[in-house]
């Protein structure tokens, strides 16, 4: 019998052969890896394994995984984890997005989908109670996100109605899709959901594009999977919701209040490509969004009472018709302050553009900010770009975002992501790579989230990005190799939202997990065994990297050079990430996880975690 919380079946879709099969996992694999990021990493290890370094992330053989976890849809805040070999870091990134697709696919009877191969022409996958099928998507290819979703929504509902006209109203199916950025394989393109939700880190939008897969759609009419102890789950579910509801900040402002305070108070907001982390521009404060643009203050996805989403709509002026969410803090920072934009309307416009083009709203503006700094420093000229790229010029950044999505002119270079673009531009200009990498704010190819480490006043500090297996991902930062294992690593594997986990206590969450699955898991077992197992496997694959870029142990386990430049302004002027503390905490992190002083997992650690077969591949990294 399948353990509680699992539908018990996975879809294995070979796009080249147009074959769809079902498979399942033994119970012990589920107990060890749980779901989401954990199971995805396991799938990648099993299917690619020793061939990892030779596998091009955009090659048809790269498995693209959409994974739910046992708590998805049951615990508040349903999400899905998208994974595969990342074209950005060449490792594994568990990239999650909030979407009803996660719930619909489970009610249709599946825990996830693995795609391999490449379709001859654009297709989308439709999953229903009757199984899965591939549908031609030629008519959707090339459309922007909003149009794709509107057409897809209508088309799928009509198909379902035709098949079962008599069962009642067919409501909106759950879908995930890519925009033009994904289609044109912009390295850090996002997999989108709804009109403005995205699995951004990792660049899985480009992997979808490389497979000619425009979208995945699901509509299930069944139940969510049975849980192991229904009565306990019901009580814990009520308690979890009550805790979520007390989070009044999220309910009122989402993360929108941080656009001002992260800059003004904690000095940890990227301003003009991280040249500063402080600003006192009240125009980007949340009241400007709330009073002028928010048309709905409480908006959430299925089974979420935290409802941090607010709907923004511009009803007049030059950006009329733009609809997005809050924008949340990350996009206020990256599509705003990082580009020198401090106007709420302009910020909403760039955020909407990211959604429509299918760019990642963190990674793409990071690269755009990088380009603008090179322009400021005279390294990139008006001739290179085709126009002036001044800070705060919304129209110029609008043009650049389009050029990146369609890979036109300099956009083709920038579409490779900040790290690779830096190398390419260095080559173009005959400069040393270090001269250009010093302005690139990325860790292992992944652009750093909008929380700086220099002021030490935010939740991010020292080596939290430097040693993370997910690079610059701000949702899964390294803390001490112990407490973080039951945090982001667990949330991405059980697959629910980090914002519904911030209210309820860790004990409640793990009791919940135990009641759902029946597995004897605890906070401690995740901190000592399950979490480290997933992270160690991710680390091994990240070390192997390739084929275009590999990361050197220790040297690349470091912050971007910018974080070692003193803050030039604000209340924390002069503060800098302390290299000595970074080194000490890096070593402590490695030691806690049982990795050697260069961050290579030790043989005894691999044996202890049941990963003995990984050991021979680590030999070449050990000195």
């Amino acid at each position: 019998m399948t353990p509680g919380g699992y539908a018990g079946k996975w879809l294995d879709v070979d796009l080249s052969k147009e074959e769809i099969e079902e498979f399942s996992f033994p119970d012990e694999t589920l107990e060890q890896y749980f779901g989401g990021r954990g199971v995805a990493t396991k799938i990648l290890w099993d299917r690619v394994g020793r061939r990892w370094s030779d596998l091009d992330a955009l090659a048809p053989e790269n498995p693209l995984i959409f994974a739910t976890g046992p708590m998805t849809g049951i615990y508040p805040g349903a999400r899905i984890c998208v994974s595969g070999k990342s074209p950005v870091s060449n490792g594994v990134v568990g990239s999650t997005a909030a979407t009803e697709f996660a719930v619909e696919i489970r009610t249709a009877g599946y825990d996830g989908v693995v795609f391999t191969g490449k379709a001859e022409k654009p297709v989308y996958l439709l999953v229903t109670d009757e199984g899965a099928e591939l549908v031609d998507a030629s008519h959707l290819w090339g459309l922007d996100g909003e149009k794709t979703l509107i057409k897809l929504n209508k088309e799928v509902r009509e198909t379902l109605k035709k098949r079962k006209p008599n069962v009642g109203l067919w409501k909106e199916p759950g879908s995930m899709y890519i925009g033009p950025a994904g289609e044109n394989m912009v390295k850090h393109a996002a997999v989108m959901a709804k009109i403005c939700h995205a699995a951004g880190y990792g660049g899985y939008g480009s992997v979808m594009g490389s497979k000619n897969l425009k979208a995945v759609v699901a509509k299930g009419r069944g139940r969510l999977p049975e849980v192991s102890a229904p009565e306990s789950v019901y009580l814990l579910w009520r308690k979890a919701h009550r805790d979520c509801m007390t989070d009044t900040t999220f309910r009122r402002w989402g993360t929108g209040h941080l656009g001002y305070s992260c800059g003004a108070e904690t000095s940890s907001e990227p301003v003009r490509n991280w040249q500063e982390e402080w600003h006192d521009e009240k125009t980007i404060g949340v009241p400007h969004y709330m009073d002028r643009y928010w048309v709905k203050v409480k908006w959430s996805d299925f089974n979420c009472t935290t409802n941090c989403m607010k709907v923004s709509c511009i009803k007049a002026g030059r950006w009329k018709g733009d609809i997005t969410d809050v924008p949340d803090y990350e996009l206020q920072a990256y599509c705003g302050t990082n580009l020198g934009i401090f106007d709420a309307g302009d910020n909403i416009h760039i955020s909407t553009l990211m959604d429509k083009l299918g760019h990642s709203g963190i990674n793409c503006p990071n690269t755009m900010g990088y380009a603008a700094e090179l322009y400021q420093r005279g390294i990139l000229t008006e001739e290179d770009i085709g126009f002036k790229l001044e800070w705060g010029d919304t129209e110029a950044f609008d043009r650049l975002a389009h050029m990146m999505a369609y890979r036109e002119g300099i956009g083709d270079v920038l579409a490779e992501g900040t790290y690779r673009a830096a190398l390419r531009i260095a080559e173009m200009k005959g400069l040393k790579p270090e001269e250009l990498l010093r302005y690139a704010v990325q860790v292992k190819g992944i652009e750093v989230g909008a929380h700086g480490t220099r002021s030490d006043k935010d939740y991010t500090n020292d080596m939290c990005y430097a040693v993370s297996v997910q690079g610059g991902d701000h949702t899964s930062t390294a803390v001490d190799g112990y407490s973080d294992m039951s945090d982001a690593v667990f949330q991405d594997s059980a697959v629910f939202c980090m914002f519904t986990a911030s209210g309820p206590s860790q004990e409640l969450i793990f009791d919940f997990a135990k009641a759902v699955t029946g597995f004897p898991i605890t906070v401690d077992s995740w901190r000592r065994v399950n979490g480290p197992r997933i992270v160690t496997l991710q680390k091994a694959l990240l070390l192997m990297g390739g084929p275009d870029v590999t990361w050197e142990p220790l040297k690349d386990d470091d912050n971007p050079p910018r974080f070692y430049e003193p803050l030039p302004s604000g209340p924390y002027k002069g503060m800098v990430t302390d290299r000595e503390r970074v080194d000490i905490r890096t070593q402590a992190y490695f030691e806690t996880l049982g990795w050697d002083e260069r961050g290579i997992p030790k043989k005894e650690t691999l044996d202890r975690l049941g990963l003995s077969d990984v050991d021979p591949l680590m030999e070449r990294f050990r000195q």
Partner: protein
Amino acid sequence: MPFPGLEVPHLCAQCQDYPCVNACPVEALSTDPVYGAVLVDREKCIGCGACITACPGTVPYLHPEDNKSTICDLCGGEPRCVEVCVEAGYNALTIVNEGPSVHRKLYSRDPVDTARDLAVKLFGEKGEEVIE
């Protein structure tokens, strides 16, 4: 619903003339004498879908498990959905006392229609564009 991500509550309004009850060929539907809710006799129901077609709001649906018509029965006068909605602080669903001139039929609307109006209310002119 016509616009992605804009789902609207989709509930029975207990029309005074009960088109669903009248449409049922096997008399499986009846009304609650106190609360006016539509009750389904699952033994009698044959899953023909006549009530769905007759309903101005496409409210009934065939339950995936037994393929029988399913309509809100108002939980015997104490709807649980209202309870949790109030508890969660949304107050989107509330119990209202019916005034003499409020015609229930006005609320028996197709949810797609309601969503279309809401799209325009939320997004202005853009709302006209984004609906199906």
